[in-house]
């Protein structure tokens, strides 16, 4: 099974039966300390990363927040 999603405005397919935010971060090798995650426009906070399931066709945004301004 594979799951196809839109990640940061790009189509991506992952070889897996189920996908949550924690797994997605691991697969992408994202180790950001500060970040914002949205699934279909809904904000997902860090404590929910393991439960937040990503389904086929979902629109996911991951933004790495960087200091400076």
């Amino acid at each position, binding site marked *: 099974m594979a799951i196809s999603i839109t990640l940061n405005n790009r189509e991506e397919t992952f070889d897996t039966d189920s996908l949550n935010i924690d797994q997605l971060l691991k697969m992408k090798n994202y180790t950001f*300390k500060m970040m914002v995650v949205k699934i279909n426009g809904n904000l997902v906070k860090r404590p929910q990363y393991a439960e937040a399931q990503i389904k086929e066709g979902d629109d996911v945004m991951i933004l790495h927040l960087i200091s400076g301004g």
Partner: protein
Amino acid sequence: MNFEEIKKVLQTKTIGIAGCGGLGSNCAVALARTGIGKLIIADFDVVEESNLNRQYYFHHQIGQKKVESLKVNIKLINPNAQVEAHHIRLDETSIAKIYKNCDVVVEAFDTSEMKLLIIETMAEGLPNKPLVLGVGMAGWGDNNSIKCRNHENLYICGDEEKEITEDLPPLAPRVGIVANMQANTVLEILLGSA
């Protein structure tokens, strides 16, 4: 649209600027020059000599509240611009209150913790309001890495990569590029594409 028509639209608009450092001060000035009706600015800090390498303040303003100095500087450029200045350390409560009636909010904080705070606060309290972020502008050069992307109400300006460190300080050119890119994004939200 000619400049008179642009100003006619912009003079009815209110823009919130959260933070008056390198991003906020330069973005506010760019918006005031184009004729935005009202700017709501907030910052807890005072002007320091180390700020003058990139922020829109002058040497004689060292020690003064940033919001008061920025209001003076904006008025010198465009006396018609209304400026509502808040000398406070923004938090969840004040962000939701101060920026409630803005057409667009510009995130101009320096720390990533505050960037996260305003994104989360607005997602809960002001969910559909456009929020223009500045993310990644340390150092110099590498013009082509600076970009803008949009995801629903979030507009992200910057290289999304270069964090400020001892060897990668924030300097006027790249901070100014991102600040002006944020102002440019505000105009695109308000006026549509050129």
